């Protein structure tokens, strides 16, 4: 069964890499900005997992995106993974639990295996 992942990543080259790392059954929609992400979530195809950068997301930073997504009732339960090159200890002020973030992955540590495990964990597999 196909899984639809929404990837919010401003760097096109990195987005290409992360899309490749996803399992074969995944359809990846890539956007660079918050508004584009909202448009995809609002679209016809249901989003099963959101993977978002937390820092370089154009005019909106990643925390704003989390806030936006969770402010809509329809998207309260969509699993969210955060990917970042900022060390997590620098982001202690962000309440990840409040936004229902299910995983925080350092970008430079991402491998295909880790990506697949994280997506599967979000889907309860």
């Amino acid at each position, binding site marked *: 069964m196909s899984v639809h992942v929404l990837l919010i990543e401003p*760097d*096109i080259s*990195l987005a290409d890499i992360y899309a490749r790392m996803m399992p074969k059954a995944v359809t990846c929609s890539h956007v660079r900005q918050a508004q584009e992400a909202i448009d995809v979530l609002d679209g016809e195809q249901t989003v099963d997992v959101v993977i978002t950068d937390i820092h*370089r997301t154009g005019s909106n930073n990643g*925390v704003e995106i989390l806030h936006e997504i969770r402010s809509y009732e329809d998207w309260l339960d969509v699993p969210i993974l955060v990917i970042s090159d900022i060390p997590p200890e620098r982001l202690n002020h962000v309440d990840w639990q409040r936004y229902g973030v299910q995983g925080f992955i350092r970008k*430079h*540590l991402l491998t*295909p295996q880790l990506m697949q495990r994280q997506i599967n964990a979000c889907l309860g597999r």
Partner: protein
Amino acid sequence: MQLSGDGAQLGERHVQALRSLGMDLQLPLTYLQNVLSLLRAGYYQKDELPHHFESLNTNAQRLQSMLDGLLLAMNSLEHPDQLQLTPLNVSSVLHDVRQNLRPLAHSYHCEIDFQTTRSLVPVHANYQALKHSVGSLLDTMVQSSESEVIELLAHHQGGKVMITLRDRGQSLSHATIDSMLERLGTTVIPSSHLPSSGFALYVAHNLVRSMNGSLHVQQQKDRRAVSFVLPKSEQLSLIS
């Protein structure tokens, strides 16, 4: 003899600066590590490799350029009289910077629009220092810009030459900018609540200062500009 405690404070600032520096170097490093991970796992077809090696090369060059710029800035602080200043054609330096950043700008769907006054007088400067000052700021702007076009301008200004980089993007407070100009360390950007080191501003500020120039940051709502003012060369001939 008791430890004064000053060393601990200096040490902590040093560690903070290194951590912040690590953050700024992280993007090209991340790219390199991610691509290597895919290569090791055999995720690329043979005919895809040239494209990805090209991207690898671009990011390795960006990393090298950031380190070179920082080293030059640090050396200029330690030995301010050692930077060799010669008559310099600003237009050719800016042309080189724009060419180097074209692949990055393209990947961010951004264009660098270069405009200059005809017959711009030469400045008394250093090629590498000017290249790194403008290059590091442009690199940051391309990644964070909300514009499709970043303007790179070079004009005469009161007997000197002014280089301006202009776009739309997140504004910073004067206090945040002042902190970034003077010290390579972590600053939390209030509007985003996220840490930033202002690496590019720090490098540019120190290099421009070592060329007897000045750096100015202007912001108005979501419009921002960074300008360098450089003294013109007293010599009429250019060494190309």
